[in-house]
């Protein structure tokens, strides 16, 4: 018996250690932090109050990490906002296009602008639609805002559109409200001039300018732009009307080709008359 007690005395640390480990493991196995007793609740409540009391001190590490998190969140939000803005613009554009389709009188063929080129100061856009899509030379092109130009070349899969921002192009146009007709010419930048409007005709700034039914190249009633200024020049029988186009020619992406070609008979009459006038003019010049 004495030997037994001596043995225990000799290794008491290890017996104590083993007993305490067993107690600890028992506590772990029965311990459930969700079931806090009254005493522990009181203790933890008191520690919580102490923690709250000490929280008035600025905690630099926490502030730095919070600041970093806020910045990251801000960056993410910024991306989200950009995406949402883009989606909003796209949504508005699509809504406009849907409205356009609702009110269409012509058949529209949608096309993406896949290339841009300038040949001798004339701006062309390449569209991803061609003969396979029934595209023909002479068809007018517009986007959701207004007139863009006219098809001047077609291959099997692509077509070339000549933009109206071109000095050689003259468009028969009219002012929507007053129904006054004139000839529209590009004068540079985002400015057109509506010519042949007599001084006696009242032109209101803000009126919409449309393609005229007199045009043998473009379908009638296509929006072109808005009257920005109208003024008279001394000694001139016409007034000067400045028009700003609706379409943004610099960032064209999605356009519509209007499946419309003016009546060939009308074209033939006009070209015949043009030819006759040219011959008459040349004969008159020779006589002189």
């Amino acid at each position, binding site marked *: 018996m004495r030997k037994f007690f001596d043995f225990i005395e000799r290794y008491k*640390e290890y017996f104590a*250690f083993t007993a305490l*480990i067993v*107690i*600890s*493991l028992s506590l772990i196995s029965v*311990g459930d*932090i969700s079931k806090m007793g009254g005493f522990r609740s009181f203790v933890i409540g008191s520690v919580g109050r102490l923690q709250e009391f000490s929280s008035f*001190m600025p905690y630099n*590490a926490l502030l730095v990490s919070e600041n970093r998190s806020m910045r990251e969140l801000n960056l993410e939000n910024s991306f989200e906002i950009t995406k949402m803005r883009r989606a909003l613009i796209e949504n508005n554009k699509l809504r406009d296009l849907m409205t356009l389709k609702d009110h269409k009188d012509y058949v529209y063929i949608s096309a993406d602008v896949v290339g841009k080129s300038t040949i001798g100061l004339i701006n062309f856009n390449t569209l991803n639609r061609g003969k396979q899509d029934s595209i023909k030379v002479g068809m007018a092109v517009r986007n959701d805002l207004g007139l863009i130009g006219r098809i001047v070349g077609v291959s099997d899969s692509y077509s070339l559109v000549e933009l109206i921002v071109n000095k050689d192009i003259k468009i028969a146009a009219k002012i929507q409200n007053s129904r006054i007709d004139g000839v529209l010419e590009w004068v540079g930048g985002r400015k057109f001039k509506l010519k042949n409007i007599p001084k006696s005709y009242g032109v209101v700034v803000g009126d919409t300018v449309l393609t005229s039914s007199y045009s043998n190249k473009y379908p009638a009633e296509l929006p072109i732009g808005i009257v920005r200024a109208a003024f008279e020049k001394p000694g001139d029988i016409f007034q000067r009307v400045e028009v700003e186009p609706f379409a943004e020619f610099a960032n064209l992406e999605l356009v519509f080709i209007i499946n419309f070609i003016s009546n060939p008979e009308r074209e033939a009459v006009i070209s015949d008359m043009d030819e006759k006038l040219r011959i008459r003019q040349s004969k008159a010049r020779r006589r002189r």
Partner: protein
Amino acid sequence: MKIKFKPENTNKARNIRFIVYFVSAIVLSVANLTVINYISVEGLMPDLTLILCVLIAVREGQFVGVFAGFLIGLIFDFLSPEAVIGTGALTKTVVGLIAGWFHREKKTDFIIGSYRFLLIVLFSSIVHNAIYFFMYVKSSELMFMPFFLKYGIAISLYTTVFAVFPMMLKMPKKGYL
């Protein structure tokens, strides 16, 4: 005439020491849960109660060390809202046993006042964190070794830095009469 009171060997002095240890355990546990947050680095905090546990074990021996470790761990478990009661008690009991191995009668102040104390704290802390993180990781999908190497070693080193303070208190003073 200067009277030098040396309470080392009396029972009363021993009881006073134990009361001081108990109060220190509560104070350091509360400090570990409150103000120590302010010196945390990347969320890592030194374990002040572990230093106390090592100090007691080195000073009082292995037998007292394991009980002190158990009680200190239990106090911390009770005060800490997230702790599962028993985990701190278990790990600190192990610390008490390990640190108690380095107890040498009449050489305790020398050990605490030397770099050995830092090594004991570092070693005890590594074992403590290994057991603690093993239990912590067991209930999650974390891998033990990367987690232990990243946090366990770092916490041990940070704790060892704080062990310099008791070491300096017991360091033999030089250059003073």
